[in-house]
């Protein structure tokens, strides 16, 4: 069996044309990950450019209101560009630069990863092209313009369902077309090896910080860590350093869309089965003949029919739990956190908040829950207004 397995999941199911590119990437990654110079440069970028470490905020009002466990929020929304995506982009684009690449390409769903890639490309003087489902360019028009402002070229993708999965397919196609000078900055813990490992390692800073900050604040580890899951990068980042701490519950919150019993869902663990797609073996929403299902969620960032292979393994082993949250529940949580704590979370992150609203009141007061707020919700305000029947211009 090939490299990059997480249990039975993962692997490198990609066209031969790309094989040497991923092998070269793996070699470069392994070389630089222990290079003190590289790590110094990356840490400097994290701290001075991206505003790390991000805060671990005690949500006092939410805690009092829910009357159960103590709630902490890991504020990835306060990073530069407003989401956790920058952690991965700084790592990958710096790596690409060391590899001598001059151009980066990326897929994006909600636009957060596209914006982060365009940002770091601007910072490092790289050419940048972003592929985004046409449907998503409409849902997230502001982010499209933001990417253009940063000097990136945005390609609306019209194939398939014109959402995130098609953006990934189109970026892979573009990579096979131009490899020599181009690095594909994959935005989640998915795709062929070594991407799930690279992205996880760059996002693992989230749980490294939570652990340290929690020890400082409470002198102990949390009882549960919650994060939303599409491909699963902020979730794996939030879970990673807690995997060894078996008393810490790890809970991934998937997008159920209009419900896991409807066709309009993107809850991969709840409704998918094992398959092979986008370079990896993992769980995918698909029909009985293996045709990938057109998924749906109010959240463009979670609107993906698969899940990263490490999550698939954590699910198989029972180490992490995966729950599904409907559009309605996520929108309620979006409004709840805004009103209760004065923090407008991304609609993606609102899926994790929503699950906390269900479990926190039932937990003892001496328990501690950490929710990763993976991004800020400014980009979603217009869509939520529409959801509530108010028409506002962005």
């Amino acid at each position, binding site marked *: 069996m090939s490299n990059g397995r997480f249990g039975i999941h993962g692997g490198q*199911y990609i*066209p031969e*044309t790309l*094989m040497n590119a991923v092998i070269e990437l793996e070699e470069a990654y392994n070389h630089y990950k222990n290079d003190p110079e590289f790590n110094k440069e990356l840490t400097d970028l994290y701290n001075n450019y991206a505003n790390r470490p991000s805060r671990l905020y005690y949500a006092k009002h939410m805690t009092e209101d829910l009357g159960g466990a103590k709630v902490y929020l890991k504020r990835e929304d306060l990073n530069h560009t407003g989401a956790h995506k920058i952690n991965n982009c700084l790592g990958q684009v710096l790596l690409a630069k060391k590899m001598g690449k001059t151009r980066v390409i990326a897929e994006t769903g909600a636009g957060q990863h596209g914006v982060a890639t365009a940002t770091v490309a601007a910072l490092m003087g790289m050419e940048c092209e972003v592929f985004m489902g046409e449907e998503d360019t409409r849902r997230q028009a502001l982010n499209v313009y933001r990417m253009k402002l940063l000097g990136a070229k945005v390609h609306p993708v019209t*194939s398939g369902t014109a959402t995130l999965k098609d953006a990934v397919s189109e970026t892979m196609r573009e990579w096979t077309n131009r490899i020599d000078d181009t690095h594909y900055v994959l935005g989640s813990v998915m795709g062929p090896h070594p991407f799930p490992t690279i992205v996880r390692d760059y996002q693992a800073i989230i749980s490294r910080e939570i652990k340290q900050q929690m020890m400082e604040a409470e002198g102990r580890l949390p009882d549960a860590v919650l994060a939303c899951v599409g491909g699963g990068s902020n979730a794996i980042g939030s879970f990673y350093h807690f995997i060894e701490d078996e008393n810490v519950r790890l809970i991934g919150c998937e997008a159920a869309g209009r419900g896991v019993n409807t066709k309009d869902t993107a809850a991969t663990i709840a409704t998918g089965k094992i398959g092979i797609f986008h370079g990896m073996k993992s769980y995918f929403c698909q029909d009985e003949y*293996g045709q990938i299902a057109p998924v749906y969620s109010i959240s463009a960032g979670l609107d993906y029919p698969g899940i990263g292979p490490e999550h698939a393994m954590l699910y198989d082993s029972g180490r992490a739990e995966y729950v599904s949250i409907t559009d309605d529940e996520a929108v309620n949580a979006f409004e709840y956190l805004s009103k209760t704590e004065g923090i407008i979370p991304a609609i993606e992150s609102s899926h994790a908040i929503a699950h906390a609203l269900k479990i926190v009141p039932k937990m003892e007061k001496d328990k501690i829950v950490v929710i990763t707020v993976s991004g800020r919700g400014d980009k979603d305000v217009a869509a939520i207004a529409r959801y509530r029947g108010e028409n506002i211009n962005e």
Partner: protein
Amino acid sequence: MSNIKEAFEKGKAFIPFITCGDPSLDVTEQLVYAMEKSGADVIELGIPFSDPTAEGPVIQEANIRALSGGVTTDKIFDMVVKIRKNTKIPMVFMTYANVVFSYGIDRFMKKAKEVGMNGLILPDVPFEEKEEFATVARNYDLDFISLIAPTSHERIKTIAKDAEGFVYCVSSLGVTGVRSEITTDIGAMVSLVKEVSDIPAAVGFGISTPEQARNMAEKSDGVIVGSAIVKLCAQYGKDCVPYVADYVASMKNAIR
């Protein structure tokens, strides 16, 4: 020797690709007979996949047309049963890993053998992942066709040593689709194959004109054409059979 390899014994091979069920499985069946008559040596039957990441727009659209027409893997197996009553031409499936995996790798290979297929091509299964599929294919006497690309370099020999049926030599970077010119040194790629194996090497991706076919056949053992044929299927729909037949004849004549 497998009958796919045998198909290369009679001179340069012409290998057309069509997407099953585009525009209908009846037309696909008729296309097989017509292409054989026009000189095709091996036929690639595409099982449509919702998200074909190695295909350009022409074959992507054919996949969507076929799937919206209700084509399934089982219906394609049934069609092959019918075809096998009328012709012995070597045929290989070309599809994506998930189509085979979700059917059950063993169940798929067993069925493919039963209905009379001779091999299969999975463009998203590279050398590193092939064991999972190739071992089972071998159990059922199906050739698991390996691909080499312009970026393969030192990998070519490793892949060719272990290859079955023929080596699919990808002519260009990028996805499938018609190209005005092919700049890769195909001769060099084929020589690397021949250094380690006597397996035939056929060139595909981007070939559409008789002149390109002649040029590629001079440097290899055969030519694979997909998008140019699928374009005719898209253009003429259910009436495409004579157009495809003429086209295949012109391409085969060019490489004789």
